[in-house]
């Protein structure tokens, strides 16, 4: 049981990394990786929301959609769930911890449109995960997202001062870097067989 769950976790973080292997959530990956500080803020916010949203959408599916035979409404209801979770989280954090709200600040609402969040929710259903598996899978996906986002931000900070050929400057070298990272992560395939 524990072993299965840890396999699931490692698989979500490394082998089936959402950003570099499944290419979900690329917009924040390219968008907020300019500075390490903001990347860490975004990672923290995403981890929080992704875990919560995957659990909530699992509950919605199991207790509302599945009994009524409404599985075709999954996408729209999950978007609803995610939006509410994000908004609710923002309000609670704003009230209870102004400091945390300052750190996560603008990133919280941005997560609503992060396709990795919806991706995790839908994959949980596709792979027929149970409650605990959904939780672990969501958290693993978020941990993988945070890992590559922070790594990539650190690289881009180095790249900002590196002597890059003129034709590769800016977005081009970022894309090349992301591609190389993706290739590296492909090397993890076969590490865990589920």
């Amino acid at each position: 049981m524990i072993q299965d769950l840890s396999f699931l976790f490692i698989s979500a973080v490394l082998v089936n990394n959402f950003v570099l292997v499944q290419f979900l959530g690329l917009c924040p990956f390219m968008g907020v990786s300019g500075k390490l500080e903001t990347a860490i803020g975004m990672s923290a916010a995403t981890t929080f929301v992704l875990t919560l949203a995957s659990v909530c959408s699992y509950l919605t599916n199991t207790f509302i959609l599945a009994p009524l035979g409404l599985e075709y409404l999954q996408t729209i209801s999950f978007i609803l769930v995610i939006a509410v979770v994000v908004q609710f989280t923002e309000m609670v954090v704003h009230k209870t911890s102004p400091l945390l709200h300052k750190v996560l600040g603008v990133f919280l609402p941005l997560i609503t449109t992060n396709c990795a969040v919806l991706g995790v929710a839908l994959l949980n259903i596709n792979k027929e995960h149970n409650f605990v598996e959904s939780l672990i899978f969501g958290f693993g996906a978020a941990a993988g997202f945070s890992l590559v986002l922070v790594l990539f931000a650190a690289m881009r900070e180095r790249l900002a001062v590196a002597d890059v050929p003129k034709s590769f400057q800016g977005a081009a070298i970022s894309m090349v870097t992301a591609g190389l990272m993706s290739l590296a992560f492909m090397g993890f395939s076969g590490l865990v067989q589920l």
Partner: protein
Amino acid sequence: MIEFLTENALLAALIALGGLALVFGGILGFASVKFKVEGNPIVDQINDLLPQTQCGQCGFPGCKPYAEAIADGEEINRCPPGGEATIQHLADLLDVEVKPLDAEEKVPSVAFIREAECIGCTKCIQACPVDAILGAAKQMHTVIGSECTGCDLCTDPCPVDCIDMVPIETTMQTWHWDLPKTPAQSQLIATDRKGEVA
């Protein structure tokens, strides 16, 4: 109930989604009341009028802190990026008088003493806040150019008006490239946008 709904798929879909939306709306509505953050509404109004450049030229860490300070009675003319337009809007909002911009734009300059006219009264030496003026009583004074901040405080005390403010000329060492300006950047400030009076 469930059997009835599974037979009427359309009704079930409507009820399920509608119910979900209703419940979530209720939760959010409840949360927005329960977790309401008390803020001074006037601060937000002032903050909307400020340019949001967060430049700190007003002496506050950013626009929001300056907005809070204005709400507490700070002068409204401390914002160089906003300029006259922002002062005008702030004056309208707060119903106070329009004041000229506090930090007027000036060219960086240094003080220069016309040494032939200097009588050696030492009054400018006492006025100088950074000790950039050298000299003694009944001796000619002079300004250390690299120390002078161009604050203009020494020109008033001089009884013979022999101190000039000389603009610093750009040399090969001090020249730097201006950041390019796009039309979008000059439209950044809320009060720049035409016809938008808050």
